[in-house]
């Protein structure tokens, strides 16, 4: 039985290549919804980042609009210049609250809201980055019974973010970048294609 329904991922410096690699390793029938906060500059409204990652992934990659439902098997991207939050009703919310750790989207904001809404059913993943965003969020996920995965700093483009997360939150698994997709697939299981919601 699958206990993890939502994977939240945070990435900063070097994160796009890492995200591309993780997403390309996930199977088409991946069993959980994925929400991603990737630090980036302010961009036009078009889903440029989502489109770029969609080329790497067997899963649909979508930029989130406010109140979008959380769909299993989909990759939901935080849009440029918005915080992405997980709500209890199985939906996302976007916010323009001030930046956290100089960032919007903030990884902490996504992770903390996911911890509050999904508790033990969420997996948090911290990837490469050069700042400590996500450490507090990952700590909250662990406190509420969720599962914490940190990219092995030795395999990270920038080690500061994984190291900060490990220092503050600890981790249930610290794995090489290439091992993250297989680990997530084990944690979240696979869903028969007929039960998958397709775009």
């Amino acid at each position, binding site marked *: 039985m699958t206990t993890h329904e939502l994977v939240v991922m945070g990435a900063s410096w070097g994160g*796009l*290549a890492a995200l*591309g690699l993780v997403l390309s390793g996930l199977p088409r029938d991946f069993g959980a919804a994925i929400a991603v906060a990737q630090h980036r500059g302010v*961009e*036009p409204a*078009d889903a*440029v*980042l989502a*489109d*770029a*990652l969609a*080329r*790497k992934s067997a899963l649909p990659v979508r930029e989130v609009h406010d109140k979008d439902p959380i769909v299993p098997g989909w990759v939901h991207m935080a849009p440029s210049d918005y915080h992405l939050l997980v709500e209890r009703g199985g939906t996302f919310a976007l916010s323009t609250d001030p930046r956290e750790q100089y960032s919007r989207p903030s990884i902490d904001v996504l992770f903390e809201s996911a911890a509050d809404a999904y508790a033990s059913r969420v997996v948090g993943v911290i990837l490469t980055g050069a700042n400590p965003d996500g450490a507090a969020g990952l700590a909250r996920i662990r406190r509420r019974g969720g599962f914490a995965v940190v990219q092995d700093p030795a395999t990270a483009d920038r080690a500061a973010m994984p190291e900060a997360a490990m220092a503050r939150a600890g981790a249930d698994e610290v794995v090489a970048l290439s091992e993250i997709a297989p680990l997530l697939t084990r944690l979240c299981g696979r869903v028969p294609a007929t039960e998958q919601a397709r775009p």
Partner: protein
Amino acid sequence: MIPDEQAGILVVDDRPENLLALRELLEPLHQDVTCVTSGDDALRCLLNQEFAVILLDVQMPGMDGFETARRIKQREKSRYIPIVFLTAYSFDSHQALQGYSAGAVDYLVRPLDLGIVRSKVAVFVDLYLERKRAERLAAQLSKLDVRRRQALELNDTIVQGLAVAKYAFELGEHDQARAAIGETLEAAKRVLGDLLGDDRVDPGDLVREGPARVPTGHAPPIPGHEARRGR
């Protein structure tokens, strides 16, 4: 064509001495006064010139002032030009009504009070010049608006294209990144072309000309040498 700062005044009267007097009277307004002696000539003038106001004698042999006015009003091009009737006698109310229904905006009754004639014509000239000025401003504004939209489109094109290229590059898709940069350059050139018209240098031309300038080991051609030899 009337210069922007001048208005045309059309004076129609079958008697040359009246025309001469009116021309002198209107001289101080420094506008472009055209005098004709018949309704037919007036209609001909209106075909290819714009006027701020028409002073139209009512009593003329052949086509009279009322009929001339009716024909002026029938044409789209001249329909909205104000017509002031000049008349040698006092109108009764029936005739006055006939004139207004033919499209008159006013009457001037002979003997003419010179100051009043000049003042009335000056009002129509001012209205006309003001309208022209407003039209010019509106045209300039709409041109600026088009340019602003094109500039915004250019900005979006470049920002969007570079974002696509940047992400493709970070994901290791170098061909995709190169293609995105190429497409962005092409799109930017298209929009810039619209924006600047012909006042531009095609960056592609510079790139294409580049290799030809690489020294080949032969003596470089002397500029103009080919042309001189050809003569």
